[in-house]
């Protein structure tokens, strides 16, 4: 039983890392008022780029950085279209998803199915890793885990809610006209946070292909990008909640894996569907059961709306 719980938790931390990282990036982009629905495509680009990179330079961190660069490239394209040209965000997001899925399959064709030569290795932290259950699950993991679950969420939380820059950033997402009048550059803030979000989505793809499933295959992202976008809503656009939500969903998919590996008497398709149905339930049920949540966890007021200075 202890063994089972330990295995479940460490699988959850791994699988959830992908979702957390992508969701954290999306939280920052959406806080400035831009919905980036291209996460699925950007993750796919990141996953393929990471594997291609480590084939030449066998170091997972180099692969991770290359994936972030690939994500940023997609993010620059998306930010140019939506923030500079102010085109429809839903359309551009879908376009980036199509582009990313198609392009990653084309560039990753030659390495499809080949096991990654290197991957993020587990590092045992002294003392902490000896704690039963929690030790192996949380303190014998690869290093990006600490980046994903501790450093980035805390950093983003402090940035968003305890600095002047964070206040400006949220103002841009809530009321860009007021922010503009106060001398904040709406375009610059939106542009760079969208690129940051895209870079983290690329990084999430690298984490998927270098730590969770160490290879590249077409369609391996399998909706994780969309789940990450949904988690942002579930997390109420808060970085700490987003990383926790990623962990919860990691647990759901870990249960699915384990159930299939151990032949639980639950049909395989039900286990396969569980992350998607779970996400659906998690964004509908809390709002249904506790209507106050709708106001508390509301989206930034200008989310999805382009800002035109001349139409005030």
């Amino acid at each position: 039983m202890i063994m089972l719980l330990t295995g479940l938790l460490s699988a959850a931390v791994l699988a959830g890392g992908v979702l957390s990282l992508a969701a954290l990036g999306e939280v920052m982009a959406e806080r400035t008022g831009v919905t980036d629905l291209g996460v699925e495509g950007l993750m796919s680009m990141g996953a393929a780029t990471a594997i291609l990179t480590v084939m030449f330079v066998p170091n997972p961190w180099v692969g991770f950085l290359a994936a972030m660069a690939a994500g940023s490239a997609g993010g620059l394209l998306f930010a140019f279209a939506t923030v500079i040209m102010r085109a429809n965000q839903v359309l551009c997001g879908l376009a980036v998803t199509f582009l990313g899925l198609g392009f990653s399959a084309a560039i990753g064709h030659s390495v499809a199915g080949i096991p990654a030569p290197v991957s993020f290795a587990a590092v045992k932290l002294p003392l902490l890793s000896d704690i039963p259950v929690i030790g192996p699950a949380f303190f014998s993991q690869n290093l990006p885990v600490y980046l994903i679950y501790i450093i980035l969420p805390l950093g983003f939380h402090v940035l968003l809610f305890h600095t002047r820059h964070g206040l400006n950033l949220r103002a841009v997402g809530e009321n860009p006209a007021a922010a503009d009048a106060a001398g904040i550059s709406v375009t610059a803030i939106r542009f760079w946070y969208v690129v940051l979000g895209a870079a983290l989505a690329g990084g999430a793809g690298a984490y998927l292909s270098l730590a969770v499933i160490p290879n590249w295959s077409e369609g391996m992202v399998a909706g994780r990008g969309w789940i990450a976008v949904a988690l942002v809503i579930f997390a109420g656009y808060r970085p700490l909640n987003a990383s926790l939500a990623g962990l919860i969903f990691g647990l759901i998919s870990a249960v699915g894996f384990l159930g299939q590996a151990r032949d639980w008497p639950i049909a395989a398709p039900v286990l396969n569907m569980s992350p998607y149905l779970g996400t659906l339930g998690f964004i509908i049920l809390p709002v249904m059961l506790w209507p106050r949540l709708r106001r508390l966890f509301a989206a930034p007021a200008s989310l999805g709306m382009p800002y035109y200075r001349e139409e005030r």
Partner: protein
Amino acid sequence: MTRFQRFPVAPTGLVLFWRAAAIAVAGVIVACALALSGRNPFELAGLVIHSTVGSRFGLEDLALFMTPLVLTGAAVTLTRCIGLWNIGGEGQFYLGAVGAAGVGLYVSGPPILILPLMAVAAMVCGALWILVPALARAWINVNEIITTLLLNFVAGFLVYWLATGPWRDRVTGALVSTGRLPVAIPEMWGAVHYGFPVSLLVVCALAGLLRRTVWGYEVRISGANPGAARYAGIPMRWRIIVVMLISGALAALAGMFEVAGTVHRMQGGMANNFGYLGIVVAVLARGSCMAVIPAALLVAFILDAGIVLQTQQLAATTVLAITGLVLLLIAIADELAHYRPVGGIGQGKASA
């Protein structure tokens, strides 16, 4: 002093101009990418023209691709009229295939009765598949983009499970497929079946419903100005639910036509991105039902061209990337069409 001012309405002429420019830019980018990968873009272009509009087989393929695209495009266009997105066309398409295949495989009778029954079963399944997102949107304002999309993955697993499990092909042992259906939509011109004209008629009927009835007027007002619609006493929740259910049923009908007319079995992966491409069709059509038809023709052409490129050792997903590029450039073009040059500042105010 000439400057550009943004106008709330984009004139059709400007939209067409910028879109033509966008498609030309996309063509140049694709040609450069092909040239960089060591292929002759002009030779390929000739080949694409010949095997799409230049031959009988090409034209048949175009019509076969258009049939589902017209319906999934209409499904998205309908939700756009009320200001919502249905990104779940892929899943509803699959559910339509499930409903149609279920009736086709397990109910026997004359085709004249079975085919309509298949269509009804498909549409009911598709409408049920979008029911939860529709209720969540209408009552607790849950983002329908995410909820409809997540169900696509669930539908994919459902079809895979049916096609490898209880409904698997026990006769020829085809992988991830049901057996061949005993009934088929009759063919009218080569491989083109009657689903093609029926889908065009459905779109015309939908256009009439939206343009010529009170219900359609209320739907369009609810989309254009929700505040005014609420003030006028239009029951918005019911309009949203009914619009989304019809949208699901339309996408599901595409699945039924594909199962009964083109593929003749239910297979895993048979939705072939038709649901997602319906979004592209709807965007191209800019909310007009009749414009769905030429828009579907353009997307069918891109798909057909993709098949030609596949025979030239290009990955099947290249066409997905090309579609993404076209969509991105068209989104930008549509925004550019809102800008018109105005003379001086005073003149600008006079013309606005």
